[in-house]
């Protein structure tokens, strides 16, 4: 076969090219020809096709994501914003924290173990590439019906993959979510978050400056796995008629990644790196074009020098391979020897594959001939931008009109019925204890885990001397977002924000993972447009900028899309982790206060799902100023020692939160239904802006005065006491019975 060189491409303008099979549209192919002034070579076509895919180019979502920049709140905390591998936030004392959440949905359905494992691997390299030591991971997961046979294939594989990779990498897994809903049956969601810590001066960026500087590829050898993986898989709807996509899934080696981390941190420490990029989706195509595009412009790469696992790979395949555990560094010539020496120390293969040039082209050579000659920016940044049509779905009004009123859905009345409903709720798979899953993850390694799942947020000590720490929570509620994507996205943010504050940390910044169906469906695009608009508006009001994240579209099998599922991660800072607030009610005699207002808001609630398999009406109303006030009270209460425990109220309402706090602390509680409130609404409503706290009697006056002065409703609803949850005048539930209902559920279904 003739090598398709630049020269050859110029001479054979009419050669047939497989642009459609590579996922390009006719107008996109025409544009590539226009940019280059000739037809692309096979290698160029491969690069453009992966970089212009939905997954890499954000072509459908870009016009909406712009709002995160346009509506960015004023903040001093943001050191690096959207566009780099991950955003960086100033947390004080000279420390910077970088964090990001990403999806690995499609590969995880095709091949659960490797799909989920490489999801962790990819996000960890993003964090590492910013110059930070990765210090923790989290993983929000969504599966189909818990009793569906395929869930037994998908869930154990995904959990084992996350554990297998993360545990072996030595990163504590400190939180996440596990949600079941039939809408995720053919499209489970595997989102992965990583957080890293560095000093301000250690921030590194993905840019290639300085003609003559060397391009060093280091890490694993390049193989034929995952060719076009993320970029192809995640840019199309699953369809039973198409061939198996298993070969498009990458295979991970966490041991190699661990070496890569230590090796990279050491070359950073010795200041040997002037630019760095990890290899994620679109592999070498992405890394070289992004580095060159963000730098001074030119780069020359000798593709023959790339270490291969399989010598029969074609240059196109090498450019598209998504083999894991690889990084690319830009190194000044004087530092190259030392760089290679450190790689050798860690048994990491490192090879100079090219250099930065003073030109403006990305030039790639193979067997002495030029096969790529492109302006890098056209590959990396000037991909297509689509204004996809969107329209409010015709069924939206009907869905919202189907409100779960007492007339429509029978509500439990009287003590016995309420008691039964509580056991049913806390024992339902979504509300049950998740430790069968989370105990497969190491949460202790690195020795700085202050709080981990099932606490409201994960908390990591950043500095062992000063006890500075960060807290992170991720939340999302696809049911709320389905009912109203604008409010649903805001509720996800509000919940994560509240969770961070509940542990005593001040929320600073946001990363989001936007999981939606096919952008080619105007209904889905409307959900996406509404969710991004809602999230951007709420971030502006709460003063927490979006620092980065990821969009996952095409989460759809055939015509059935998942619920719109924006998952929001909020990062907060706490000056002294000794002051953290746990969720456990552990001290008898302490007073239980309900903060916030409770209304009859059951639309999309856990109770409607568990008791009636119902989804309709509107999600709870959201008052962002109230959320901010609640957070301030929770943080002050923590800092000044006024509250000993706090737990946010979200899905499942008050009774779910109370059950979790009591079981965690091994203590019961006696509660009184506040005057004017229906007992059912008191226990099961999911009104936003609420939390329960336990207050030492000695602090009661100070605490209630603070709430009174600030205007936050605080209702004393009971006392921590005994070994039962007693709702006076209604029912008593021994902790043992609650424990029995709440635990072992996942194991019984999946284990």
């Amino acid at each position, binding site marked *: 076969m003739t090598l398709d060189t630049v020269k050859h491409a110029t001479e054979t303008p009419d050669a047939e090219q497989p642009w459609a099979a590579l996922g390009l549209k006719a107008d996109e192919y025409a544009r590539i020809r226009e940019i280059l002034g000739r037809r692309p070579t096979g290698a160029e076509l491969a690069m453009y096709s992966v970089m212009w895919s939905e997954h890499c180019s954000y072509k459908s979502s870009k016009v909406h994501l712009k709002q995160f920049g346009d509506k960015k709140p004023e903040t001093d905390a943001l050191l690096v914003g959207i566009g780099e591998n991950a955003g960086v936030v100033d947390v004080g004392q000279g420390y910077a924290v970088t964090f990001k959440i990403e999806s690995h949905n499609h590969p995880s359905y095709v091949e659960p173990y490797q799909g989920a494992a490489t999801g962790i691997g990819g996000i960890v390299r993003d964090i590492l590439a910013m110059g930070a030591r990765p210090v923790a991971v989290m993983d929000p997961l969504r599966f189909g019906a818990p009793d569906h046979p395929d869930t037994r294939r998908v869930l154990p594989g995904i959990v*084992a993959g996350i*554990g*297998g990779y993360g*545990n*072996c*990498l*030595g990163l504590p897994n400190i939180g996440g979510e596990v949600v079941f809903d039939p809408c995720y049956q053919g499209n489970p969601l595997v989102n992965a978050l990583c957080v890293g810590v560095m000093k301000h001066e250690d921030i590194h960026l993905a840019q290639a400056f300085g003609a003559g500087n060397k391009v060093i590829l280091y890490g694993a050898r390049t193989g034929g796995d995952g060719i076009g993986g993320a970029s192809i898989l995640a840019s199309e709807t699953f369809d039973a008629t198409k061939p198996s996509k298993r070969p498009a899934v990458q295979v991970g*080696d*966490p*041991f*190699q990644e*661990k*070496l890569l981390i230590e090796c990279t941190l050491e070359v950073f420490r010795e200041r040997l790196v002037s630019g760095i990029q990890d290899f994620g989706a679109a592999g070498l195509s992405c890394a070289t074009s992004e580095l060159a595009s963000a730098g001074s412009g030119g780069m020359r790469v000798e593709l023959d020098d790339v270490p291969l696992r399989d010598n029969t790979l074609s240059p196109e395949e090498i450019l598209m391979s998504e083999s894991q555990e690889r990084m690319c560094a830009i190194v000044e010539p004087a530092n190259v020897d030392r760089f290679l020496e450190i790689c050798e120390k*860690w*048994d990491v293969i490192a090879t100079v594959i090219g250099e930065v040039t003073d030109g403006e082209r990305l030039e790639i050579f193979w067997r002495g001939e030029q096969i790529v000659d492109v302006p890098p920016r056209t590959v990396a940044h000037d991909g297509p931008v689509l204004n996809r049509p969107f329209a409010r779905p015709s069924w939206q009004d009907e869905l919202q009109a189907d409100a779960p009123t007492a007339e429509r859905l029978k509500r439990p009345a009287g003590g016995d019925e309420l008691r039964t409903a509580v056991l049913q709720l806390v024992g339902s798979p979504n509300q049950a204890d998740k430790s069968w899953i*989370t*105990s*497969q*993850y*190491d*949460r*202790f*390694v*690195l*020795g*700085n*885990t*202050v709080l981990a799942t099932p606490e409201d947020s994960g908390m990591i*000590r950043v500095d*062992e001397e000063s*006890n500075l720490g960060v807290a992170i929570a991720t939340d999302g509620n696809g049911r709320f977002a389905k009912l109203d994507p604008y409010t649903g996205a805001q509720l996800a943010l509000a919940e994560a924000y509240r969770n961070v504050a509940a542990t005593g940390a001040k929320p600073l910044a946001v990363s989001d993972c936007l999981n939606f169906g096919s952008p080619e469906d105007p209904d889905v695009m409307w959900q996406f447009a509404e969710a991004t608009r809602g999230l951007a508006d709420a971030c502006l009001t709460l003063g927490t900028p979006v620092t980065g994240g990821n969009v996952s579209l095409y989460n759809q099998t055939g015509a059935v899309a998942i619920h719109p599922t924006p998952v929001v991660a909020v990062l907060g800072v706490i000056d002294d*982790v*000794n002051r953290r607030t746990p969720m456990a009610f552990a001290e008898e005699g302490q007073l239980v206060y309900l903060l916030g207002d409770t209304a009859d808001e059951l639309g999309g609630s856990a109770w409607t799902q568990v008791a009636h398999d119902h989804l309709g009406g509107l999600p709870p109303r959201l008052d962002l100023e109230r959320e901010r006030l609640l957070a301030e009270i929770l943080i002050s209460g923590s800092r000044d020692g006024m509250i000993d425990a706090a737990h946010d109220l979200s899905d499942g309402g008050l009774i779910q939160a109370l059950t979790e706090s009591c079981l965690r602390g091994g203590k019961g509680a006696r509660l009184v239904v506040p005057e004017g409130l229906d007992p059912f609404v008191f226990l099961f409503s999911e009104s936003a802006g609420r939390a329960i706290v336990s207050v030492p009697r000695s602090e009661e006056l100070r605490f209630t005065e603070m709430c009174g002065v600030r205007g936050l409703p605080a209702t004393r609803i009971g006392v921590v006491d005994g070994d039962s949850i007693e709702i006076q005048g209604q029912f008593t539930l021994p902790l043992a019975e609650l424990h029995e209902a709440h635990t072992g559920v996942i194991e019984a279904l999946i284990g």
Partner: protein
Amino acid sequence: MTARIGVVTFPGSLDDRDAQRAVRLAGAEPVALWHRDKDLHQVDAVVLPGGFSYGDYLRCGAISRFSPVMDTIIEQAKAGLPVLGICNGFQVLTESHLLPGAMLRNESLHFVCRDQKLRVENAATAWTTDYTVGQEISVPLKNGEGRFTADARTIDELEAEGRVAFRYLDVNPNGSINDIAGITNAAGNVVGLMPHPEHAVEPLVGTGRTDGLGFFTSILKQLVSS
């Protein structure tokens, strides 16, 4: 002068910095040892930390056992150098034949991470003198292949000679024989266990208990007084 306690870093060691922290909190000086370096840099004792050295490829601990540093450690351990193997370190010790037995995959076939209750069975080893026999402690446990096993004769020997150092209480998390969590060699200088005492040294992090600190204070006292 305080004692110098070495902590070996193999490729894939994960809890090495945690072991160093525990050594420091106990009042000793942690010394980082590198797997390629045969020189132990005059340390008075060695900790083989947890992790997945060499990715657990082949068998847990099987490749590390051939590291240059292990040549020296094996030789000196036989001459009395105190060595503590935690989790993967315990696996390295059995692969090195400094301790008998081997570790199988957990009975549940899952990795398990939990706060584990243990009973101290031998308080006379170099690493356990700050405990009392029968004392109950809680330390984190996290492993996928922690199911201690050995042939019947070896188990009988370990039991008869009081060389079972720790036993799991309440729950046997991995199906190990006789609930064995950790063992010692006959001389008492080499101890290996699957749970992680270095993650129970500060009230603030981990499980919030300090039950594991005794390992490091035990060795420190012995080294300083000798």
